[in-house]
C-alpha cells in the first residue's frame, strides 16, 4: 500500500497548455461518422453497398484515431503522467461571459471512445446482414452513422454545453431509429415516448447547466484550473448554500443526474426503454444497450468531481447517496419485471435497465472506476446478447415471443454458444466471465458502504433474479423442443462473426479488472497498476467470491428447475404463474408504472391543456366579445342620438337651404366621381394650408 501511495504522489499532471497532436485531431473521431452520415443522406436509396461501406469505413477510421489516442494516454500513464489534455475554443461571447466548447483526452474519455467505436463497428457490420432486406437500408445507415458521431461527441466533450448538444442529437437519432419502422403505430408511439421521457430528464439537465453557468461562469469541465470541475469552481459551489440543505454543488449535481437518469432509464424515468425495443435489433444493441443508455452513467462519471465535492474519506455526499439509492432500486425493480416478460428483447431491455442501475450504484458507492468498469463489460456482453437475440429473431422469421421458440441450440449452434457466453457473463458466473469481475467490484463497494446495507441487499437480490430470468429465457429459446412455425436457420457469417468477437471479449475483459491486477481501475484513477496475486487470498474477497457463487447457483438453479427443458406451450400458464399468480400478474404488467403515469402526469397535463384552451376560447375570447358588444352598443346609442338628435337638426337646416335651391342641389348630384373630385380638392387644399403654416 505504501509503495502505491508513493507512486500516486509521483504522478504529475501532463502539460495542458500544449495538447499533443492526437488531441488536436480528436475532433475527427465524431466528425468522420457525421460526415459519412451527411454523404449517405444525399445518396439515392438503391445505393446500398456504398452507404454501408461509408458508414463502416468512417467508424473504422474513428476507431483507429481512438486507439491512437488511447495508446497515447496509456504510454504517458506508464511513464507516470496523468494525461488530461484539452482543446477549448470560444463559441459565443455575451458581455463578459464566454461560452466555450472543447474536447478532452483523459483516461475516462479514452476508454469510453475505444469501447464505443469498437462495439459500434461490430454492430454496423452485423447490421449489413440484419437489415439486408429492408427497403430503407441507406436511411438506416445514415441514422446509425449520425448516432455514432453524436455519441462520440458526448464522449470527447470537455464542455457541458457541447456534451448537452451531442446528447440531444443522440436522443434525436435514438428517436429516429426507434421509429425507423414508423408504419407500425407501436413503433411510432414508442419513439415519441422515448423522446418525451428523456426530454423530461433533459430539462433538469438544462436547468443544472444554466445554474452551473450562472454560478461558475464557465461550462468547461477542465480548463487549466478555470474549469467547472476543478477545485476553484467546486470550492465556490460548495460555499454557496441552496434549498433543502444542499450546497449549490449538490443541487446542480442532482439536476444533472436527473438528466442522466432520463437517458439511462433510471427509476422513475425507465418507462421508455423497454418500449424502445420496437426499433430494429441492431439499434437496440448499439443504442439501447451498449452506448446511449450508458451515456447517462458516463455523464455522472464525467461530473463526478461535482457530485463528490466536499467528500471526506469513507464518507458520501447527498448527491452520491441519491445516485446510489436510485441505482440500487432500479437494479432490483427492473430485474423483478424482467422475470415475467415473454418478449425476447423486452427481457433484455429490463435487464439493461437493471444493469444500468448497478452501474449507477457502483458510481455512487465505489467511484468512477467501479461504475465505468461495469459499463464497459456490460457494453460488450449486452451488445452480444442483443445481437444474439437479433440472430434468433432473424432465424425464427421475426418471431419475438420466447414461448414460441425452443430447441434452437441445435438449429443455431453458433448463436447458442455465443449467447450462452453473454448470458453467463450477465449472470456473473465466477472467474471466467467479465460480468463477474465488474459486478463483484460493485457488490464489494456496496458491502463496504457504511451508511446502509439496503443497497447491498437490493443488489444481491437483483443478481439472483438476473441469473433466474436469464436462465428462464435461455431455457425457453435454446432448450426443449421447437414450438414455432417453419424452420429456424442459422444466421449468415456477417452476423455471427461479430457475435464470436464479442463473446471473446465478454470473457476476456475480466482480466483487466481482477483484484489481483486492477489495471482498469488504476488506469482511470491514474495510479500505477500492480500485479499482486495475494489479493486473491484476502478473506474479504474470498467471502465475496462465495457470495457470488451462491447467487449464481441459486439463480440459475431455480430457473432451470422451473423452466429447464420443459418446452411448455405458449398458451400454457407460465411455471411461475402457477406458483405465484398475483405476483406474476403484477410483474407481467410491469408493476403498473406506465398506468401510473397515465392517470397522473399525462392526465394532469391533458386536463390543464383543456382548461387553458377553454379559458382561451371562452374567457379571454369572451372578454373580447364583451368589449366589442359594449362598444357596439355604445355606437348604437350614439347613432340613435345622431339620427334623431344632431342629424335631425342638421337635416332640417339642409332641407331648408336646399329648398332655397341654388348651388347645393347641383353639388349633390349623386355622382360619385364628383364627390371624389371634391374630396381630393379638399385634401390638396388642406395639405397646402398645413404646409404653408408649418413653414411660417
Amino acid at each position, binding site marked *: 500500500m505504501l509503495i502505491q501511495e508513493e507512486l500516486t504522489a509521483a504522478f504529475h499532471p501532463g502539460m495542458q497548455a500544449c495538447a499533443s497532436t492526437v488531441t488536436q485531431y480528436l475532433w475527427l473521431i465524431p466528425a468522420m461518422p457525421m460526415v459519412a452520415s451527411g454523404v449517405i443522406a444525399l445518396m439515392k436509396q438503391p445505393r446500398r453497398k456504398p452507404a454501408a461501406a461509408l458508414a463502416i469505413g468512417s467508424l473504422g477510421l474513428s476507431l483507429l484515431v481512438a486507439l491512437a489516442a488511447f495508446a497515447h494516454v496509456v504510454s504517458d500513464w506508464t511513464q507516470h503522467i496523468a494525461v488530461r489534455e484539452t482543446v477549448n475554443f470560444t463559441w459565443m461571447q455575451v458581455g463578459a461571459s464566454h461560452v466555450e466548447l472543447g474536447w478532452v483526452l483523459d483516461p475516462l474519455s479514452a476508454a469510453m471512445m475505444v469501447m464505443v467505436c469498437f462495439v459500434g463497428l461490430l454492430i454496423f457490420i452485423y447490421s449489413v446482414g440484419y437489415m439486408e432486406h429492408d427497403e430503407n437500408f441507406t436511411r438506416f445507415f445514415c441514422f446509425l452513422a449520425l448516432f455514432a458521431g453524436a455519441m462520440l461527441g458526448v464522449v470527447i466533450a470537455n464542455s457541458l454545453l457541447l456534451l448537452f448538444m451531442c446528447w440531444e442529437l443522440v436522443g*434525436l437519432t435514438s428517436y429516429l431509429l426507434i421509429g425507423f419502422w414508423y408504419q407500425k403505430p407501436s413503433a411510432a408511439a414508442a419513439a415519441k415516448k422515448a423522446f418525451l421521457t428523456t426530454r423530461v430528464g433533459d430539462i433538469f439537465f438544462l436547468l443544472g447547466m444554466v445554474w452551473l453557468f450562472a454560478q461558475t461562469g464557465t461550462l468547461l469541465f477542465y480548463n487549466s484550473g478555470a474549469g467547472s470541475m476543478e477545485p476553484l469552481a467546486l470550492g465556490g459551489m460548495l460555499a454557496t448554500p441552496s434549498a433543502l440543505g444542499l450546497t449549490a454543488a449538490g443541487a446542480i449535481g442532482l439536476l444533472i443526474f436527473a438528466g442522466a437518469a432520463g437517458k439511462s432509464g433510471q427509476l422513475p424515468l425507465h418507462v421508455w426503454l423497454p418500449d424502445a425495443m420496437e426499433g430494429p435489433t441492431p439499434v437496440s444493441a448499439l443504442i439501447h444497450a451498449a452506448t446511449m443508455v450508458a451515456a447517462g452513467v458516463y455523464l455522472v462519471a464525467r461530473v463526478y468531481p461535482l457530485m463528490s465535492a466536499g467528500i471526506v474519506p469513507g464518507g458520501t455526499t447527498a448527491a452520491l447517496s441519491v445516485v446510489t439509492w436510485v441505482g440500487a432500486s432500479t437494479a432490483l425493480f427492473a430485474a423483478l419485471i424482467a422475470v415475467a416478460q415473454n418478449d425476447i428483447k423486452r427481457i433484455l431491455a429490463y435487464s439493461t435497465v437493471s444493469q444500468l442501475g448497478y452501474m449507477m450504484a457502483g458510481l455512487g458507492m465505489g467511484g468512477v472506476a467501479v461504475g465505468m468498469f461495469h459499463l464497459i463489460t456490460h457494453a460488450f456482453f449486452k451488445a452480444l446478447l442483443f445481437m444474439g437475440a437479433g440472430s434468433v429473431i432473424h432465424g425464427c422469421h421475426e418471431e419475438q415471443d420466447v414461448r414460441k421458440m425452443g430447441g434452437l441450440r441445435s438449429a443455431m449452434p453458433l448463436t447458442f454458444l455465443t449467447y450462452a457466453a453473454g448470458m453467463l457473463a450477465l449472470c456473473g458466473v465466477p472467474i471466467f466471465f467479465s460480468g463477474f469481475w465488474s459486478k463483484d467490484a460493485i457488490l464489494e463497494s456496496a458491502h463496504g458502504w457504511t451508511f446502509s446495507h439496503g443497497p447491498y441487499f437490493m443488489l444481491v437480490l437483483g443478481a439472483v433474479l438476473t441469473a433466474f430470468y436469464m436462465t428462464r429465457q435461455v431455457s425457453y429459446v435454446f432448450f426443449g423442443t421447437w414450438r414455432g412455425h417453419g424452420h429456424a436457420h442459422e444466421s449468415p457469417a456477417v452476423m455471427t462473426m461479430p457475435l464470436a468477437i464479442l463473446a471473446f471479449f465478454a470473457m476476456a475483459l475480466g482480466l483487466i479488472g481482477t483484484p489481483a491486477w486492477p489495471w482498469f481501475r488504476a488506469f482511470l484513477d491514474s495510479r500505477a497498476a500492480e500485479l499482486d496475486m495475494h489479493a486473491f487470498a484476502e478473506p474479504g474477497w474470498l467471502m465475496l467470491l462465495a457470495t457470488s457463487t451462491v447467487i449464481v447457483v441459486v439463480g440459475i438453479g431455480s430457473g432451470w428447475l422451473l423452466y429447464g427443458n420443459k418446452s411448455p406451450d405458449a398458451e400454457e400458464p407460465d411455471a411461475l404463474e402457477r406458483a405465484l399468480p398475483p405476483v406474476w400478474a403484477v410483474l407481467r404488467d410491469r408493476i403498473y408504472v406506465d398506468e401510473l403515469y397515465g392517470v397522473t402526469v399525462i392526465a394532469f397535463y391533458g386536463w390543464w391543456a383543456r382548461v387553458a384552451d377553454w379559458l382561451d376560447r371562452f374567457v379571454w375570447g369572451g372578454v373580447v366579445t364583451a368589449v366589442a358588444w359594449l362598444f357596439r352598443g355604445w355606437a348604437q346609442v350614439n347613432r340613435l342620438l345622431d339620427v334623431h338628435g344632431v342629424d335631425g337638426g342638421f337635416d332640417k337646416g339642409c332641407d331648408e337651404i336646399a329648398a332655397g335651391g341654388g348651388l347645393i342641389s347641383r353639388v349633390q348630384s349623386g355622382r360619385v366621381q364628383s364627390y371624389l373630385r371634391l374630396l381630393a380638392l379638399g385634401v390638396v387644399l388642406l395639405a397646402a394650408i398645413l404646409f404653408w403654416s408649418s413653414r411660417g
Partner: protein
Amino acid sequence: MLAWTIYLSFAGALVEALLPKNRPALARWFALVVAVAGLALALLSFAAGATNHFQRSVIVDVPWVSGMGIHYLLAADGISLVVVLLTGLAAVAGVLFSWNIDLRTNEFFAFFLALIGGVYGVFLSYDLFLLFVFYEIAIVPKYFLIAIWGSTRREYGAMKLALYSFVGSAMVLIGLLAAYASSGGHSTGLVELAHAGLPASEQMWLFPLVFTGFAILAGMWPFHTWAPTGHVAAPTAASMLLAGVVMKLGAYGCLRVAISLFPRGLDPWGWSFLGIGSWRDVFAVLAVIGIVYGALVALAQTDFKFVIGYSSVSHMGFVLLGLVTLNQIGMTGAVLQMFSHGVIAGLLFAIVGRIVYERTHTRQLAELETMHLSKRLPFASWAFVLAGMASMGLPGFSGFVAELQVLVGSWVAKPAWTVTAGVGIVVGVAYTWRALQKAFFSDATPSAHVHEHGHELAAITWPEVAGTVLLFGATLAVGLYPRLLLDAIEPAVKTLLAGGVR
C-alpha cells in the same frame, strides 16, 4: 443604403397595384425581385455594419414637422440590423410561399410589400413619431390581407387583429404624447427623449402603459388571443409575416421604446405582493405564464394551424422574459429569439398553411391522420420534423442558443422564472411531437390502401423548396455559429443597458 429597403418596398407596392390584373406571373416575379432586393440590401448593410463594429449609424435625418421637432430620422444599430435582416428573409420566403395565389395576385403583393415597407420603417425609425407612423401603416395591409385572402372566420380574425392593434397603438400614442409633453416638447427623437430625464414618477406609469401597448402585438398573455385566430385566418404568407415580423414589431417596441425611454419604470415599487415588487416582476410573470400557457393550449388543439399559432405565443414569451431580465445575456437572448422565432415560425406556418393545407384542404389533425402524409408528402414530413426540432429548441438550431441565453439571464435575475419556463419547454416537445405524429406519421388504415385514398396530391414546387431551404439555412447557420448575429446584438444591448437601464 438601408433606407432603400423602405422606399423599394413601398414603390414596389405601388407598381404592383398598377400592374395589369390578368398577369399573375408578372406580379409574382416582380414581388420576388423587390423582396430579394430588400434582402440583399439588408445583407449588404449587415456586412457593412460588421466592419463598423455595429455602432449606431444615422441613415437619414431631415426635419419633418419642425414646429414640433419631428424629424424624418432613420438610423440603425446592431439590433435594427438583425431585425431588418429577419424582415428581408421573411419577405422573400413569404413571396415564395405565396406563389400559388391566383385571386387578385397583384393586389395581394401590393399589400404584402406595403406591409413589409412599414415593418422596415419601424425597425429603422429613430424618431418616436415616425416609428408610430410606420407602425400604423403596417396595420392596414395586414387587415386587408386577412380579410380578402384569408380563410376560417377571416372577417372575425382580421377585425380582432385590427382592434387589438389599435388598442395597443392607442396606449402607445398616449405614452408618446405624455413623454413628448413632459420632456418639454422639443423633440420626438428617441435619443433626445431618452436623455430628457423624465421624472421617475411619470416613468412609473408610462412604462407599463407603453410596454403593454407594444406587448399586445408581441402576444403577451392575456392579450394574446388575437394571435392564434389571426394566424389561422390569415393566408400563409400573412401568417408567416404576422408571426415572423409583426409580433417582433411589438417586442421591438417594448425594447426600443418602453425599456430604453422609461427605464425607471422598472424600478421596485418599494413594496411587494407574492414576490412581485415591480413592473419588471409583473411582466416577467406574464411572460412566463405565456410560455407555459401557450404551450398547454397548443397541446389541446385539433386544428394544425392553431397548434403553431399558440406555439408562437409560447415562444414570444421567451422574448418578453429575456427583455425584462435586464441583463446582458438575457436581453441579447431576447433579440436573438426574435430572429429565431421569426424564421422558425415562418417555416412552420409555411409547411402547415401552404405545403399541407393547399393540398389536403383540411387542417383538422383528425382528418390529416387518415391521409398517410408521410408517404404522400415526404418532403413536407421531413421539413416538419426538422422545423419541429428547431422549434422545440434542439441544439444546432437558433432557438436553442436564444432560449439558453434567456434562461441563463432569467436564472441570474430570478431562478423561479427559469424553472417555470422549463416546464413550458417540456410541453413544447409534447405538442410538437403530437402534431407531427398525428399529421404525418399516424397509420389508421393499412398502408396498402394509401393510394386509393382520393386523388394524387400535387407535387412539391420549386418555390416551396427554395423557401424552406432559405429559412432552414438561416436557423441552422445561427444555431451553429451564433456569433454571426451575437456580434451585432451585443454592443447594442450593452449601450442600451449603459445608457438608461441600470
